[in-house]
């Protein structure tokens, strides 16, 4: 097990920088997730940690040892791939045993290890099959088994669940979490699915255009997004963004749509134009007029079981909120919205950075 430190990492292939000046510390035994839209460079980071791709500049440390020039073999990492990358010509048993055979471990020891891992992952009935005879979830478990059997210092997982169907993906999430709690091996997990990242990790790094936008616990990333990108990327449905303006003399007030919103944040340093962020989750839509409520016009109602997502127009601005499914709302009807003041996020209009 190891702590991983990335210091001043740069990476470029042929064109521009893919990763620009990245610093990251992943704690010993931590379940750390790198999340971001496709093409943000998250798999590149994983490959550099694995030793499959050399860094252009900067250094990578495992504990106190710099591993820049050390081969994947000697870094003692294991990796799980999106497409599982099982060896198609080997049986499940041979796949799991392969890394140990390469290490020239004695046969009996290999057998014991393989059977132990197989029991843990519930693979005992499939040991003689070949990968193509297995379902996606089973293949996934074989890939995990092959990674686990070596007892590596670091687990690297590159979108390991994204090829599974929705139900299985949710089930495997908690499997992974349980396994991690049992093995306590430092795990670096890459995904583009923000809900997966929120659900599974100890800490999350949100990556965009080769830079880390925010690195925090799932709770903080969701509740205190560092900028408009993180705010928009984390959470589903997406956060609403509205323009507003702040005057110098009013430290807790934003003018927006001819209404003055009172905020908990001190806005004295943000005088001028700002972006207001409001999660649809935090906006309650109702057909009953409330005192503080603002009047809106419903455009789409999308039932989601226990509640409804409601698209509406508030003075010409398209937004989304949440309504009780018991309430009768239709397109074109006038309704009213409320939201708690402390749920208002304020961002600088220019830089997009969070204002507190």
């Amino acid at each position, binding site marked *: 097990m190891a702590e991983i430190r990335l210091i001043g990492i740069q990476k470029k292939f042929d064109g521009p920088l893919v990763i620009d000046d990245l610093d990251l510390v992943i704690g010993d035994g931590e379940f750390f997730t790198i999340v971001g839209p496709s093409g943000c460079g998250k798999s590149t980071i994983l490959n550099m940690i694995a030793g499959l791709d050399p860094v252009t500049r900067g250094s990578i440390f495992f504990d106190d040892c710099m591993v820049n020039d050390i081969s994947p073999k000697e870094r003692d990492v294991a990796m799980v791939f999106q*497409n599982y990358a*099982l060896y198609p010509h080997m049986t499940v048993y041979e796949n799991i045993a392969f890394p140990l055979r390469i290490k020239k471990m004695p046969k009996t020891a290999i057998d014991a290890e393989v059977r132990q891992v197989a029991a843990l992952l519930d693979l005992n009935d499939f040991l003689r099959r070949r990968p193509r005879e297995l379902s996606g979830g089973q293949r996934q478990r074989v890939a995990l088994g092959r990674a686990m059997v070596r007892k590596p210092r670091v687990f690297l997982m590159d979108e390991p669940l994204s090829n599974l169907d929705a139900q299985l993906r949710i089930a495997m999430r908690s499997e992974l979490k349980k396994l991690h709690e049992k093995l306590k091996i430092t795990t670096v997990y890459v995904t583009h699915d923000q809900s997966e990242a929120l659900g599974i990790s100890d800490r999350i790094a949100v990556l965009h255009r080769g830079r880390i936008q925010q690195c925090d616990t799932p709770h903080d990333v969701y509740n205190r997004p560092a900028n408009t990108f993180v705010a928009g990327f984390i959470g589903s449905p997406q956060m609403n963004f509205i323009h507003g303006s702040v005057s110098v003399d009013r430290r807790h007030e934003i003018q927006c749509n001819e209404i003055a919103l009172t905020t908990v944040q001190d806005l004295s340093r943000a005088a001028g134009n700002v972006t207001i962020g409001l999660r649809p989750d935090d906006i309650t839509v109702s057909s009953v007029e409330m005192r503080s409520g603002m009047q809106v016009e419903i455009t789409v109602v999308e039932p989601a079981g226990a509640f409804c997502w409601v698209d509406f127009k508030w003075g010409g601005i398209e937004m989304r909120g949440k309504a009780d499914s018991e309430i009768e709302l239709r397109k074109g009807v006038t309704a009213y919205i409320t939201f708690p003041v402390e749920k208002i996020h304020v961002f600088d209009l220019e830089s997009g950075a969070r204002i507190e």
Partner: protein
Amino acid sequence: MKRTLFYMLLFAVIFFCAAPFIWQIITSLKPSGELTSLPPLVSMNPTAEHFRSVIYRHQLVRFILNSLIVAASTTGLSLLLGSLCSFGLAKLKVPFSSPILAIMLSVSIFPPIATVSPLFIFIRALGLRDTLLALVITHTVFSLPLSVWILTNFFKTIPDDIYHAARIDGCRSFHIFYRIMIPLSLPAIVTTAILVFIFSWNEFLFALTFTSTSSRTVPVAITLFAGTHEIPLGEIAAASVIVTAPIIILVLLFQRKIVAGLTSGAIKG
């Protein structure tokens, strides 16, 4: 009606392709006396005399053996060099990999006649005239583009992640080559082997110029087949039948693979 027309056309195609073979077999079984008789029909007294003569008097077995040795060694060498090269081009970092591939493929459009004179001088200088080795070398080189093309295309279809997984599991590149890539590519390797074998077995120009007596291959032997007085029609037919038989078996067994090999690349690229 339409169906009948279809089968008639199909029969015509099959007849066009197969008739010369059938005629060859018929001729090879005719007694010498009937060879030049008209009408040229199937003989009522089939004989094996031409087959006997070809094998005992004309040493056909020896030429077949020569051809087998050349074709088998060529296949082995071409696959060895070709698979290593393809692995490098498809999966590893090679500087100028696309120009290298282009150069290799351009060799396949070289007209053999344009290289035969310098190669002849080269081989004579090395003292390899009339040896099987001379043929193995040239056949290997001229079949390399084919091997490299088919195998590179195939290796490229093996996901990079499998290569990465093996590296993480602790393999060095040569381990990956023979423990992962080669077993995974067996179908493509068999296909390549068949095509290279057929190429070498059939090659004529180099075989004709580099060999004189002891190392003749089958195509040369059949071409230079001469009787004492007249053209030995029956024996040529018998020899043709003997030489064609293994190829027919190969084609019947592996037609699917041959088709796959011939079309690999031509369709995509």
